[in-house]
């Protein structure tokens, strides 16, 4: 009997014998596989991007913000005409009583006009404390961050981002200079390092002032967020429950704040983006199925084009099984080549995306690459069964008579 090496060699010669057809099929298959690879790489890239952004925030993080996100059955607040309590600086300090929490940073945020001489612009202003720098892993370009101090004491100092420094102090060193923020004056004590965009904040355009100063500036006693960092990842959940209890005690037994761990937020994004990746991968897989149907079509045409050859093979002693395996192998090789070229195409696509958007970590997940190749192989081979059978069933007499 004919060995597998012979089958592959003969089928390969058939493929090289019909170059245009083979090239077109390989391209169709390659586009399908390439699309799956590139699209899932985009989805996966988006997921990684978000994950990276969050981990730059620090991974042992607990976020506290005012108000409940859960919907309850009764609405006592509304019945007694009471709005949720403010999240105060005292609450923030109280959070430190949990022995799992190593440091906290209260956050207050607003938008204000910054002016220096005749230059002015609007920018987000963040009120926080010394610990914020470590929690957010902020880099300083020069100067100092907010010094350790009593968070309830307002101080007229500020740290500004790179863009603000350039635009408001075009020809002088900003450090030591006065900057007007809203209706108050602040002395610039430091410049943030260039970090770019991070979770919606462009740190280059950010001004940071002490939290108490921000409360006065925006006339807003309630905090926007409290960030709390724990010693270990393992103690995150315990710490979260403790923080919830501490603030509940302080708020006369009302649970009117939301406490989430960084992990929970991350997991949600992770889930959403994985689903998204799966969805786009699935859409791309449709193109693969189309390529599979194309393969079938072309193989059927090949069978009718090569009836004489099939008849001849039968006349010189090929059994149906042999003919079937020859055509089957041909289709399988075609799909394999297509898948290979598709992977290459996908890799090139990812490379281009990375060149264009270096910050975006596009990378095809291994499962998607595997699934793409598998789908290519399955559709290619699956849709070849019919043409191969048709070839095998061909009546040699009729096949040979046709010229």
């Amino acid at each position, binding site marked *: 009997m*004919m060995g597998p090496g012979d089958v592959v060699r003969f089928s390969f010669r058939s493929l090289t014998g019909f170059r245009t057809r083979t090239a077109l099929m390989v391209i169709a298959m390659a586009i399908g596989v390439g699309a799956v690879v590139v699209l899932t790489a985009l989805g996966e890239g988006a997921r990684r991007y978000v994950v990276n952004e969050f981990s730059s925030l620090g991974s042992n993080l607990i976020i506290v913000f005012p108000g409940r996100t859960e919907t309850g059955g009764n609405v006592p607040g509304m019945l007694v005409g009471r709005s949720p309590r403010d999240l105060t600086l005292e609450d923030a300090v109280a959070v430190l009583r949990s022995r799992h929490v190593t440091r906290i940073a209260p956050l207050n945020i607003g938008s204000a006009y910054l002016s220096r001489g005749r230059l002015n612009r609007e920018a987000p202003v963040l009120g926080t404390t010394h610990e914020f720098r470590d929690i957010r892993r902020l880099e300083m370009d020069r100067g100092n961050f907010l010094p350790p101090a009593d968070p309830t004491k307002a101080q007229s100092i500020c740290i500004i981002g790179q863009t603000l420094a350039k635009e408001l102090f075009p020809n002088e060193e900003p450090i030591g200079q006065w900057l007007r923020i809203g209706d108050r004056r602040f002395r610039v004590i430091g410049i943030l390092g260039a970090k770019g965009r991070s979770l919606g904040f462009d740190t280059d355009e950010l001004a940071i002032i002490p939290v108490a100063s921000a409360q006065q500036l925006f006339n807003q006693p309630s905090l926007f967020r409290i960030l709390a960092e724990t010693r270990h990842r393992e103690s995150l959940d315990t710490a979260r429950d403790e923080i919830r209890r501490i603030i509940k005690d302080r708020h006369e037994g009302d649970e009117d704040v939301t406490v989430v761990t960084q992990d929970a937020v991350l997991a949600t994004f992770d889930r959403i983006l994985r689903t998204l990746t799966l969805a786009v991968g699935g859409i791309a897989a449709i193109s693969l199925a189309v390529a599979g149907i194309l393969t079938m079509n072309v193989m059927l045409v090949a069978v009718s084009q090569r009836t004489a050859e099939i008849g001849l093979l039968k006349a010189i002693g090929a059994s149906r099984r*042999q003919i079937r395996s020859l055509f089957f192998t041909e289709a399988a090789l075609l799909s394999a080549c297509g898948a290979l070229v598709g992977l290459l195409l996908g890799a090139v696509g990812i490379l281009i995306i990375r060149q264009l958007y270096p910050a975006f970590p596009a990378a095809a997940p291994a499962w998607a690459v595997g699934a793409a190749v598998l789908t290519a192989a399955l559709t290619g081979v699956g849709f070849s069964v019919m043409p191969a059978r048709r070839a095998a069933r061909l009546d040699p007499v009729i096949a040979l008579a046709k010229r």
Partner: protein
Amino acid sequence: MISLAGIDRSFQVGDQTVDALADVNLDIGAGEYLSIMGPSGSGKSTLLNIVGLLDRPTGGVYKLDNRDVTRLTDEEQARVRREKIGFVFQAFHLVPRLTALENVSVPMMLSGIAISERRQRAAKSLEDYGLGDRMDHRPSQLSGGQRQRVAMARATIMHPPVLLADEPTGNLDRASGREVVGLLERLNASGVTLIVVTHDPELGRRARRQLHMVDGRINADNVLQK
């Protein structure tokens, strides 16, 4: 060697049944040289196809070497074709994308002969047919006579005891035709049973035994006395 008893072959054309062969009885001994002649549609090609196991009779028994080959499975029939029967066609039927050497090697590939032996045997055979310098040519680069010689090399590469030729000179000029006939007759002289189907009376008359067919029946079976 070849024994056909009561062979029928009918085709369904529309709602009509056409008898291509009707009650054909024929015995052919080993080493015979037989020609089958007759007008178009007389059933001579159908007869050849049945002898070559490319077609199955609707009725009757065909024994090859005392073995009933009409009831064999497809796999077994393929094996018989491979080992016992060589075909030469009017249209040569070479695989256009393969070289002469590869074309001759195909039957050996189908029987699973090792590639090194295939090359060696195919090369030797092509040399015997005077095509030693054409081994790597594709059919399109060969003349008609050369193509038919490649086809003959392919038909004989497995040393089959029976050689079936369907209008072997039909697509050739006279000189090439004569050459091919000479080669076929030389094979017959070495003991191969040769059956030639032809329209050409000149070719048909060369055979020692001449069959004449009309309407699916053998109406003349002349054996020349030497």
